[in-house]
């Protein structure tokens, strides 16, 4: 068994109790209602680690990614980068640190400026790092080769590339900042299966080569599982389980994870979000977020949201039914 990543004394990125709450007003005269996009999310990413975040759309996984990047202000909680608290740094103070974290987006058609050539797009990060002239061209070509593209792309416009090629270009642009962490927000979700595999392999290659940390956000447990060392499962803004990938697949400890694993038609794929047993927002306000859809819900589940608690080494789950023996998709070891 490949053991979990050895605990790092100072994780590269550490999210501490991150929450994002939006105020929503349903009517002109009603009181605004607080809607939590993410609630008390605590995560660490070690150097060279790929941490997957899975969840259906609206589960808050992208919100967490953007808060980690400081592209979205958290309502509460803290973001530590390299041991330093960057939660309250001004944009000015943050600028010199920004290069450490780069992001890859879901929609390949929106991630490259349509009015710039590839050369212009790739020059932007180099210029910000103060690399110019022959050095810049050299580095640009090396990076393009790394993501599997040739020098002929430089003069072309983004609109002339396929989705997979555009993701490669986005990755090249991110790499040119020499990041330590890449947040890949549904970076392969818009691609077809074959291209997905290529891009996932590319991420894996980059991790191995540069000891990059990757926060790999997705809704497809099978795809996220292929690349991630550990997986965090989110449901409606709450982190419900986090474990080393193999352990999560072998023995899920949260009923929602088990449900994801057993989802049809392909194992581990959320083809379409399953219709909730009760309308969204109808679960007991103080109870467990999953209580309304959970087949194992007990009375206690409707009164309070359990905290994320250790259930095995490196494995934490937010479920009080520790007695359950949930079915995974890998055979039980031992």
């Amino acid at each position: 068994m490949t053991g979990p990543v050895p605990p790092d004394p100072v994780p590269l990125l550490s999210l501490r109790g991150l929450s994002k709450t939006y105020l929503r007003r349903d009517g002109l005269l009603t009181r605004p209602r607080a809607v939590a996009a993410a609630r008390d999310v605590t995560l660490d990413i070690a150097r060279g680690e790929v941490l997957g975040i899975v969840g259906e759309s609206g589960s808050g996984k992208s919100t967490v990614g953007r808060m980690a990047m400081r592209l979205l202000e958290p309502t509460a909680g803290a973001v530590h980068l390299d041991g330093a608290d960057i939660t309250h740094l001004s944009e000015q103070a943050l600028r010199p640190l920004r290069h450490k974290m780069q992001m890859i987006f879901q929609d390949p058609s929106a991630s490259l400026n349509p009015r710039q050539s590839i050369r212009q797009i790739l020059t932007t990060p180099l210029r910000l790092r103060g690399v110019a002239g022959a050095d810049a061209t050299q580095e640009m070509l090396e990076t393009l080769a790394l993501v599997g593209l040739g020098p002929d792309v430089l003069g072309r416009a983004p609109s002339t590339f396929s989705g997979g090629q555009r993701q490669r270009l986005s990755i090249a642009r991110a790499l040119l900042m020499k990041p330590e962490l890449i947040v890949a927000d549904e970076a392969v979700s818009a691609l077809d299966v074959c291209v997905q595999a290529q891009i996932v392999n590319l991420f894996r290659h980059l991790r191995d080569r540069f000891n990059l940390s990757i926060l790999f956000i997705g809704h497809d447990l099978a795809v996220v599982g292929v690349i991630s060392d550990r997986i965090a499962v989110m449901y409606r803004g709450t982190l419900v389980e986090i474990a080393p990938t193999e352990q999560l697949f072998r023995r899920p400890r949260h009923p929602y994870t088990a449900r994801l694993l057993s989802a049809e038609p392909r194992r581990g794929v959320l083809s379409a979000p399953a219709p909730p047993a009760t309308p969204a927002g109808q679960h007991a306000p103080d109870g467990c977020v999953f209580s309304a859809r959970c087949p194992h819900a007990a009375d206690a589940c409707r009164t309070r949201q359990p905290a994320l608690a250790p259930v095995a080494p490196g494995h934490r789950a937010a479920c009080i039914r520790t007695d359950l023996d949930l079915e995974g998709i890998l055979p039980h070891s031992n």
Partner: protein
Amino acid sequence: MSGGMVSHGVWRRMTAGRGGVISLLYIGSIVFACFCGPFLLPFGPTSIDLHHRFLPPLAHGHVLGTDEIGRDLLARVLRGGRVSLIVGVVSTVLSSLIGTVVGIVAGYRPGGTRFLITTVIDTVLCFPVIFLLLTLAAILHPGLVTIVGIVTLVSWMEVARVAQAQTVLVRQMDYVTAVMAMGAPDRQILFREILPNIAPAIIVSATLNIARAILLESYVSYLGYGIQPPEASWGNLLNNAQEYLESDPWLAVIPGFVIALTVAMFNVLGAALREAIAPGRRA
């Protein structure tokens, strides 16, 4: 480069439609006629000929006839067109610059700055334009510079609104977020990432603004506060002509028709541009 490819496509789509071709031909001709025409005519716009007053069109070599002191109407329409077009274009360029800067800042900076700017825009838009124009024109010394300034002052808001709305849209595109995440300074994000993507919408809005500016100049000059005789503009030709509306209607009909046609053609051009820049989408 990509920019060249993009504008090439725009030109092709512009010239593929009837509206684009007709408006481009018309605007090209009127600009040529107004700026070169006066030199080709045998009559100057201010040369008085008291023996040939109120000639109807086509009499004695005066293609459009003559006015109350025998000045050639065609020469005056072309000369006036020069003033009207200059006012329209120069004030549009100025107001587009102001509007773009104001709008882009408002769109990029949510919160207090945006609130302040939108409030100012809404306030200025609340003023009845004609009265504002007349008040300003009455206080200030009339002339070309004054009228350009006044028209600019009352027409930057439209572009500002377009620029703001577009900036809000483009700002949240992933390619802008990506550059923000690199720690790029605001100036770079605004001018290299956002501006080129909102420029098409601003150009369309500016084209439509030329039509409005020409109309505004005509208003003010018609009411006597704009370009002063003997210098001609389309507006003061109408002002002049109103006394002779019954006896010599062509003095009013011809400049009126030219104003209407020119304004309409700039509108057609704006619509064709919008269609060519973003086919099937609102610009």
